[in-house]
């Protein structure tokens, strides 16, 4: 098992073999999670704190469940963005928490890089549960696991990522992961929601959805934030759905066995047709949720192993010196 990272801040810092290690271990947790007794002692005695500066029911629940199934003591800190007006409080909060000796810190924050900043200040392992528009590594890993289980591999696939690429950390982490695993990546978005310079990342850029979907193995839809729909970035919700909403007709341009993914929560009728989202022959959206728990268990397990090894080495050093 090769996974050397101390924190999981982004896919950017992971090597392909580390990504494979996470996915392999997650497979075992998928099996565990399907049993009646879903208990492991991988994190027994350890403390996991979830700090979500941005509200998220789904991701927080997924991390909480993952920690509990591994036997950790899990605490959810209620830190709404409003109560932490300034980042100095972010560092202060980090230092306060650090003094309580947590082992794993799961952090979501609205600013890109905030989780990196926090990781510099604490002694525990930090998991990025989404920072600004930067990265959401566990989402990309759970997407990779979902794809690997559905397609039998995570290389040499054509993956179309469609929607609000500019503001999406999910898109960024997936773009990096899929690139590292040598896939062909298509980015589809109205030009106002396409970040500049992405063509230099080795992705193909499309503003015509049908052309972008041509021959795709995987179609990954992104959530479009409500506040972007009112004329600032796109003219209207209905025009967006007409041009970029995934329906059966547009999906017909992808391969016949292409799978449909969405990180949730979905806006039915905005970025994805409701019937399609529920089509169990095409949609793997519910699988993504299941893989989410398993992948997060794998990540936390691996980080905890590294943490123990590091502390063990330190303790041994103390004795012999």
């Amino acid at each position, binding site marked *: 098992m090769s996974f050397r990272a101390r924190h999981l801040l982004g896919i*950017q810092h992971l090597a392909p073999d580390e990504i494979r290690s996470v996915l392999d271990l997650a497979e075992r947790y998928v099996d565990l999670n399907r049993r009646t007794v879903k208990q492991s002692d991988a994190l027994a005695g350890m403390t996991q704190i979830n700090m979500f500066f941005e509200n998220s029911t789904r991701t927080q629940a997924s991390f909480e469940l993952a920690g509990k199934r591994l036997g950790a003591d899990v605490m959810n800190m209620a830190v709404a963005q409003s109560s932490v007006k300034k*980042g100095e409080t*972010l560092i202060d909060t980090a230092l306060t928490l650090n003094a309580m000796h947590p082992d794993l810190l799961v952090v979501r924050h609205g600013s890109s*890089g*905030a989780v*990196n900043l926090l990781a510099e200040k604490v002694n525990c392992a930090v998991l990025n549960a989404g920072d600004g528009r930067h990265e959401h590594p566990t989402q990309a890993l759970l997407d990779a696991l979902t794809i690997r289980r559905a397609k039998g591999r995570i290389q040499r696939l054509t993956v179309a990522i469609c929607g609000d690429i500019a503001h999406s950390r999910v898109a*960024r982490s997936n773009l990096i992961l899929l690139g590292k695993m040598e896939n062909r990546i298509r980015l589809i978005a109205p030009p106002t929601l396409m970040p500049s*310079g992405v063509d230099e*990342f080795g992705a193909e850029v499309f503003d015509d959805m049908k052309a972008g979907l041509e021959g795709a193995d995987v179609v990954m839809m992104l959530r479009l934030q409500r506040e972007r729909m009112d004329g600032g970035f796109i003219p209207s919700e209905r025009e967006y759905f007409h041009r970029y909403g995934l329906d059966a007709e547009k999906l017909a341009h992808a391969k016949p066995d292409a799978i449909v993914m969405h990180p949730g929560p979905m806006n039915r009728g905005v970025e994805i047709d409701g019937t399609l989202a529920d089509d169990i022959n095409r949609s793997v959206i519910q699988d993504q949720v299941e893989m989410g728990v398993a992948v997060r268990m794998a990540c936390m397990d691996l980080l905890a192993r590294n943490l123990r090894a590091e502390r063990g080495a330190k303790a041994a050093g103390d004795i012999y010196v």
Partner: protein
Amino acid sequence: MTLFLENARVIDPEAGEIREANVILDNGLIAAIGDASAPMDARIIDCGGKYLAPGIVDIGVKIGEPGERHRESFRSAGLAAAAGGVTTIIARPDTVPAIDTPEVLEFVTRRALESSPVRIRHMAALTKGRAGREMTEIGFLLDAGAVAFTDGDHVVTDTKVLSRALTYARSLGALVIGHPQDPGLSAGAAVTSGKFASLMGLPGVHPMAERIGLDRDLGLIEMTGARYHADQITTARSLPTLQRAKANGLPVTAGVSIHHLTLNELDVGDYRSFFKLSPPLRSEEDRLAVVAAVAEGLIDVISSMHTPADEESKRLPFEEAQAGAVALETFLPAMMRLYHAGALSLPDLFRAASLNPARLLGLPQGRMEEGAPADLVLFDPDAPFLLDRFTLRSKSRNTPFDGQRMEGRVQATFVAGRQVFGQEG
């Protein structure tokens, strides 16, 4: 007291040459440059073959007086300047409150005179409170000693207001300093847009925002005939516009910060907020284009854009962190990077850092000639050191060069013929 600086390599930015000479400083002025021997009562300083140049005249230094003295005082800025080879600070009016009345200007002038070992001159705001609505008392402020008028990075968005202020400034021969940046495009930006910004998930501003700002300002200059200096031209896209304006004979000059000449956007790395500047750091292509423009003389002035920020305003997620970096004390060492890279000669560097800014503001400094003010810097361009930001004399230590190897050190600084800084050992 008379000073005799012997065995120096004297940099003359006006002639563009370096020669070995002895220099006599007397009565606050350069009394002689040549092979003269020491006058009877002179204090003799052996320069050991090191370089002697006119001290830097730094347009655009933020000092926290009044309002933010915990960030930088006239005293701390003056000490930092002396250590960085800066002998005249041209202070910015973006203080709290803004320097927008003759009364505030008189206050800061007096404070600066009492506290600083180097010369400090002041710019005044172009509009009251830098709010972009009503022009300041440009005439009174000129009488009180303002050397230029600027609202700093608050771009005057109302072109009617700006055109009137420019017209009025023209009648008095006042210099107006603009910050070319389209406020709409640059709103909320933390870095320059492009691959790096997209990868980091940071909001970016397109380099075109600078040219749009410059185009607009130059249009108004053509209309009003006011003297105009663009404080920071940092992108390749702006250069043809600037060149055309100069070729057409508009009274226009431009500057660039030492950080934009020596760093690029990738230096931000892992969200290091000490590299967050305004305008943001640019691509390497832009940096090289701007360095070449300084070498050609298209960009006239190198400045520090010294912006002290306390730890609290920098230890934040990148987007929320304050922009700006301290630069006074690292000014000369950072300039030497350009010299060692072969990008600019020593006379070219001091032409842009000392002579041109002095000329622009009508000051007698910046020249290496008999009768000029004895504001000089003695330095060793090859002296290596490792920069530790906690050794800086500024009250704020937000330097992007922390922990970096620097080559080139100030050995002594003279202002009005008096030594105000000396390297120990």
